[in-house]
């Protein structure tokens, strides 16, 4: 039996808005095994964002159990949560969240700064490896504003990978990208999943992204309404190759 990365049991999250109590999650249960590529789907108001915050250890559930790689998140202090995020989770955001006027390499080094186990000497090397893994070995010293959207998201993925987390948590990671670049990013994630065995949890509301994952969990009104294995995973690489080539879709000009 595979190692359980996520083990969620009857998870509830309530917010107090004045006198009213909003129940964002009303008892969610599911598990994710190591090496899975899961998309969490749901329209706005489904509790998707709340789920993401809890999965990312940015927020804690009101009730229920959440084990991340065997660690019970609920009992942890703020600082312990920070350490957990640093070691076990790699975030990829919709808006990349790279530090402006800071080179790609330094952006990737960032999580290592907060990891006391990584000596200063090894930081640069690790960051370079991560950038190579996302195919940006040539652009290490570029600033975010000298990179295209897709490249920026690759830097963000390298940043998520650099601490060798147990899970990559992506939040609408293709939301700001055009179709072609989206497929490129999905192809990269698929590759990381298949070849490096990275567990990926991808939160999105776009169904055509979900087809690239091995499993889809659909949330609605704070509950899981569908949880199915995708028997027929589409290869993002093939889809990309099948795209009709238009002049406008030429690779973006590089600004060096």
């Amino acid at each position, binding site marked *: 039996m595979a190692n359980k990365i996520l083990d969620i049991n009857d998870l509830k999250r309530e917010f107090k808005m004045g006198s009213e109590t909003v129940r964002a999650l009303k008892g969610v249960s599911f598990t994710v095994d190591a090496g899975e590529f899961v998309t969490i789907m749901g329209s706005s108001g489904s509790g998707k964002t709340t789920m993401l915050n809890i999965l990312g250890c940015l927020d804690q559930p009101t009730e229920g159990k959440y084990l991340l790689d065997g660690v019970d998140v609920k009992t942890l202090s703020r600082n312990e949560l920070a350490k957990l995020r640093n070691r076990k989770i790699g975030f990829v955001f919709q808006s990349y969240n790279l530090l402006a006027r800071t080179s790609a390499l330094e952006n990737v080094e960032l999580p290592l700064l907060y990891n006391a186990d990584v000596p*200063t000497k090894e930081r640069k090397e690790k960051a370079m490896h991560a950038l190579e893994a996302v195919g940006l070995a040539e652009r290490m010293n570029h600033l975010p504003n000298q990179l295209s959207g897709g490249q920026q998201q690759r830097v963000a993925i390298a940043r998520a990978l650099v601490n060798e987390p147990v899970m990559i948590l992506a939040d609408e990671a293709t939301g700001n990208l055009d179709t072609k670049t989206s497929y490129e990013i999905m192809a990269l994630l698929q590759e990381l999943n298949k070849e490096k065995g990275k567990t990926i949890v991808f939160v999105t509301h776009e169904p055509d992204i979900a087809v690239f994952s091995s499993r889809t969990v659909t949330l609605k009104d704070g509950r899981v309404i569908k949880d199915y294995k995708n028997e027929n995973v589409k290869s993002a690489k093939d889809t990309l190759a099948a795209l009709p080539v238009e002049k406008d879709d030429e690779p973006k000009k590089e600004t060096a």
Partner: protein
Amino acid sequence: MNVFNLLHLAWKALLRNKIRTALTMLGIIIGVGAVITMVSIGEGSKQSIRNQLSSMGSNMITIRPSSNVTVGGGARIGSSGLRTLLVKDAIAIQDQAIFITNVSPAVSTNGQAINASLNWPTSLQGVSPAYLDIREWKLVAGITFTNDDVASASKVCLLGQTVINNIFTNGEDPIGKTIRFNKIPFKVIGVLDKKGENTFGQDQDDIILAPYTTVQKRIMAITWIQNIYAAAIDEKSSDTASKEVIEILRTNHKLKYTEDNDFTVRTQAELINTMSSTSSLLTVLLTAIAAISLLVGGIGIMNIMYVSVTERTKEIGLRMAIGARGIDILLQFLTEAILISITGGLIGVALGIAAAKLVTVFLLWPTLVTQSSVILSFVVCAVTGVFFGYYPAQKASRLDPIEALRYE
């Protein structure tokens, strides 16, 4: 995160906003520079007053007659008209006081000094040979008169530099020459060293010294003396010595304990303290004004750090998401604030010292940069950084990562 990483991060962050950093630093630079300059001006004037007063003889005690009785109508008689001090008072002090080394009676009068065709209005002071020791005054040529000269009231004198300049021209050697003062001939036997102006702007070199007996008998025709100068064994025992003198003179003058002193005793140390307390006050005032500008500089840091925290909310959120603890964020922003204030402080110290030098060169005011003022303003600076940087940094560290990440 270690200190090196923190400094590196902070330095990068500050370089990202060069102009803003420079302007914030300017507040601290001006503040520290002002403190250093102002304190050095205050200390300089204090030092120069001290030096001038010491030039009069720092152990010197001056005794003058004063009136202890009021005549009809309540008016008191001025000291020049009093005849209460006598030579025997000076002798009594010399014989009895333990904390006094030298005593000299003194009388003085004004008149015309004449050498051949040149003449010059000056003052003639009659003293004993001990006077030169009391005033810490040296001769540059010739010899001084002796106690025998005093006993015989001989007509010898020592000339001050200003007198020489006015009645001996063309580099003529005054030693051995005879000058006249109010028609009485005096033989010049010595030349006094230059002493310059005293604190009150009087030219101390515009003087002729002669045995007090000579001046008393041959010029002024009086039996009393006008002043007594004495030297305490050192500056610290000035007070004790002055009390001793008071006791001796009261006994000598047979004053009842209900009667006031018919003389006043003033020590040089007292005068030094009075004068330096005035300039200490000046130092305090100048420093206070400068400190206000340092405070304003500190508020500038706080302001900029607040702006910076708000502006970088998203960055803070990201850092927290990828594993920064509250303390990491706090230290990061605090380091930035301290870096601004310390760098500003260093530049400020350098500029302050330079400004103090410029004040001396161009305004000719004495300045003195003390080590303590440099260390103090530097420490104040670092404390300012921590104090004004802490609150914004704490605000940053307490942000909720979820909200910070969503901040636009």
